[in-house]
């Protein structure tokens, strides 16, 4: 089956990129099509395109107008058969060890009180879900995750912290995520991982790839320190 039926629009994004849009929802099925199309492009049109950048329901395809044109590329995308790519992109699940000890999770007690849960219940809910890496953006290696339990939805802090340590796991509104680098931030910090989310000397440079499934595995503070974590 070609993609023509599921694509809602293909529009120019300036004169050197185009934007493929599917139905505008945060939806795993729609997002899977985005990643499948990206996969298909990298396998079949690697010579024609420069790169393909996914988001929730859309994919930017960068190209050089010296080598191809909008119409030719749009037609190739509408004619794409992504069924094989759809099978391939569903495969990867990443397990990320996270320490929920209050010594590296300064807001977990507050969040538990807000949610009228015990800290153990917060940990169980947060680590019991499978999250979808819809896409990466904002910062190198920062994943936009879907799948946070509604009981854990929490407002951001009124005053952002000036420095949130790298690896911090936070919740802001309906989103959960991991800070790849130390940065100012307003999310409630409920845990920390010692795993490097972004290291440019590694290949690939980011632990999480767009389209991955992610699980958080609770670990003790001792394990966290043993894995290279720091207080």
């Amino acid at each position: 089956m070609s993609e023509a039926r599921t694509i809602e629009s293909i529009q120019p994004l300036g004169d050197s990129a185009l934007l493929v849009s599917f139905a505008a929802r945060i939806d795993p099925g729609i997002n899977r099509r985005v990643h499948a199309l990206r996969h298909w492009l990298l396998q079949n049109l690697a010579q024609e395109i420069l790169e393909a950048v996914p988001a929730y329901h859309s994919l930017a395809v960068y190209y050089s107008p010296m080598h191809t044109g909008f119409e030719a590329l749009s037609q190739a995308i509408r004619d794409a058969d992504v069924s094989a790519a759809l099978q391939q992109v569903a495969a990867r699940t990443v397990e990320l060890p996270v320490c929920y000890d209050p010594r590296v999770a300064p807001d977990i007690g507050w969040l538990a009180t807000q949610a009228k849960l015990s800290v153990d219940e917060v940990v169980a809910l947060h680590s019991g879900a499978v999250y979808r890496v819809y896409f990466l953006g904002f910062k190198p290696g920062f994943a936009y995750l879907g799948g946070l339990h509604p009981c854990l939805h929490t407002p951001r802090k009124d005053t952002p912290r000036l420095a949130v340590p790298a690896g911090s796991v936070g919740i802001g509104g309906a989103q959960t995520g991991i800070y790849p680098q130390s940065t100012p931030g307003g999310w409630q910090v409920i845990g920390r991982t010692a795993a490097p989310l972004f290291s440019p000397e590694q290949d690939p440079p980011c632990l999480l790839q767009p389209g991955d499934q992610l699980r958080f595995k609770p670990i003790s503070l001792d394990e966290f320190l043993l894995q290279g974590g720091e207080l």
Partner: protein
Amino acid sequence: MILFESAGLCCLQDLGRFGYQHLGISPSGAMDAFAARVANALLANDENEGVLEILPGNTRLRVLRAQWFALTGADLSARLNGQPMPLCQPVWIEAGSLLAFGRAAQGCRAYLSAKGGFHAEPVLGSVATDARSGLGGWHGRWFQKDDRLPLRGMPVPKGKPIRWHTSFANPAFADDEPLLVVTGAHWPALSPGQQEYFQSAGWTVSKDADRMGLRLLQALPDPVCSASMLSGPVTFGSIQLPPDNRPIILAADRQTTGGYPLLGTVASVSHARLAQCKPGDTLHFSFVDLQAAQNRLRVREQHFMEWRTHMRNWWRNTDG
């Protein structure tokens, strides 16, 4: 070797760190990529060779080893040992010379290339400085006083005096042509009055203008009726409309995705002019259809490549 006697506002850039935007890594790269390419082509360098991107200020460079250099882009009143430094031509600089930059006479960003390039470690395939993420450039940051940047090229014998400069001299200032824009997904959501205002107004570049983006001072009249939207990919020159209705034009250090309505994207042939805008400058927008924007780009590239071949031949035939 180049010694930064004072750094001013200066960073190393090439044409960008492409191929990693799907990981949230900004491409960075020279804001005025065309001026950077001209600077490299003047010395028959690879066009992706790292160059210094210099903003108005007091960047003072002591050249510790003789080499060919070329300066393009903005006119920042550069002086070489007290004399005006020629723009847009190869310049042989003797060891011990001082190259000092000053106020902006025209434009905002100057580019200095060195024959054979500067020595810096590429990160993810590029020496472009992405200071927000600490990637590339000189140890992930802009230059500071007392930094010593090595030159890679071997000094080649000094040729005949050069009495020409390129026809590509500062293309960004050729005229007051408006920025050409290709419409974006949310342009139709604007009312006819708003569309008219956007195309006829003179827009002032605000103080919030840097490598990440240029925020404009004026606001589009009346609220824009657009439902809350999902973040999507954005590119160099994308014009976003945040809730305060003051447009932001994204630039080299942009985030890879954005969540504001997209009015359009500045055409490639206008990127140089956009990159040379400084706070207080006035901009006009003019819409262009996609074919016309691409044709303009193809013509410029054809012209550029012919000239680059000419420059390479000139270097091949110049051996003192």
